[in-house]
């Protein structure tokens, strides 16, 4: 989904630029441009992927739940952003469509957590991360920063005027 640019609003006689804050739900993706803010909450084992072009000042945020879409082809059609293998290419293409250029893109990954213990079945987060790395490698795209794994629940906040990406875990905030 393409966002409209931030609009100017008249507020008590003054013109104020109001950033458009968009929430990215689980299994969804949003793109936007300078002035927009993209947020996604409660990343557990899901992948949160940020793609940003600092020259065109456009970017997007994906919140994908599962590694491979082959487990449910119907959902892969109706909800492609639910899956890393479908959502990641679509995120890049959407950013290109807004004027982003591949060689300028800054890519950051977060989420991909796992519960405690050794039960491999529940390491969906690790599998999400592996599929992402494979896709990026295949397409010659570097991953510039990451904060992945562990048991934390993460919230991601991306300011598309600068690409500044903040990860919040409990009360702590850190820049990615």
């Amino acid at each position, binding site marked *: 989904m393409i966002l409209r640019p931030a609009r100017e609003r008249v507020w008590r006689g003054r013109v104020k630029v109001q950033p458009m804050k968009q929430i990215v739900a*689980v299994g969804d993706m949003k793109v936007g441009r300078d002035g927009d803010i993209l947020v996604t909450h409660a990343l557990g084992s899901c992948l949160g992927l940020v793609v940003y072009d600092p020259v065109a000042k456009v970017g997007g945020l994906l919140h994908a739940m599962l590694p491979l879409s082959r487990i449910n082809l119907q*959902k892969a059609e109706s909800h492609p952003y639910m899956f890393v293998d479908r959502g990641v290419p679509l995120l890049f293409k959407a950013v290109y469509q807004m004027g982003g250029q591949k060689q300028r893109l800054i890519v950051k990954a977060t989420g991909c957590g796992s519960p*405690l*213990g050794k039960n491999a079945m529940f390491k969906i987060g690790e599998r999400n991360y592996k599929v992402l790395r494979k896709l990026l490698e295949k397409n010659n795209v570097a991953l510039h920063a990451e904060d992945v794994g562990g048991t934390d*629940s993460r919230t991601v906040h991306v300011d598309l005027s600068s690409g500044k990406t903040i990860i919040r875990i409990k009360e702590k905030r850190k820049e990615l």
Partner: protein
Amino acid sequence: MKRPSEEDIISRIDAFPNIPSAAAKILSLLDDPDTSAEQIGEILRYDPGLTANLLKLTNSSYFGLPSKVGSVNQALVLLGWKKLAQLILSACTTAVMAKPVPGYDLQPGELWRHSIAVSVVAEGLSRELGVTGVDEIFTAALLHDVGKLVLGDFIRDNTSSIDDESLREVSFEKVEQRLFGIDHAEIGARILSNWSFPETIITAVRWHHDPDAADPPNNLIDVVHIANVLCLMIGIGIGREGLQYTPSEAATRRLGLKGEQLEIVAAQAMGWVEELSESFSVHFEEEF
């Protein structure tokens, strides 16, 4: 902040609000397969809001009934008494589960959404695995975290102990036990026991983080345990403790669960949650 004694917590369990009288009456009829529509009608007669909620719930696209249900009698015929009783109990307890939960950092409505999600995922896993004889799974899953409503206040007052680095690799229910002498699962079981819920549901709530400790373990507990971890992983009701829980390998073996089945159910979870939650009338306390 002074750490509370187990007695402090137990006194809060005993002071926890009772369930609506309609739910208590439904519970007393639960084991009677001959319960009539008249008996149910008599219980619901004095609570028109509950009847309306029950019919809305019954008609939600999640249950996929072929025709619109307009009366309790019809609901009884289409669903059978066991299922209908579970839905009445669900409708009765929604208001309790919709409260915000401090400490675990769950916003208003988030515990409720998690409860709904674990219910539909538990049912989905049961179908996927062909597990039968788990009629109470919906209610058990819906109420599995009721204990968080009591323990949340104590967690909030002790966050620095809770967040101690040395506890990061310890399953969170064990952290609760170390700090408070009791965990939210045991607290939930005691609340349901005070409410006179059936033992199957109480046991499932008690062991939902430690299904191997149940004597003996059973499918219902195992499925609720796995559904809970899965819902946290996909971010529904994931709180301060994140994914700091340990899925039981023995439970997955007992159920014969495969990784692919877990992902098949996960892919459908959001859709089921939407289908069911649209039919619940819940007013969340807004933050200001």
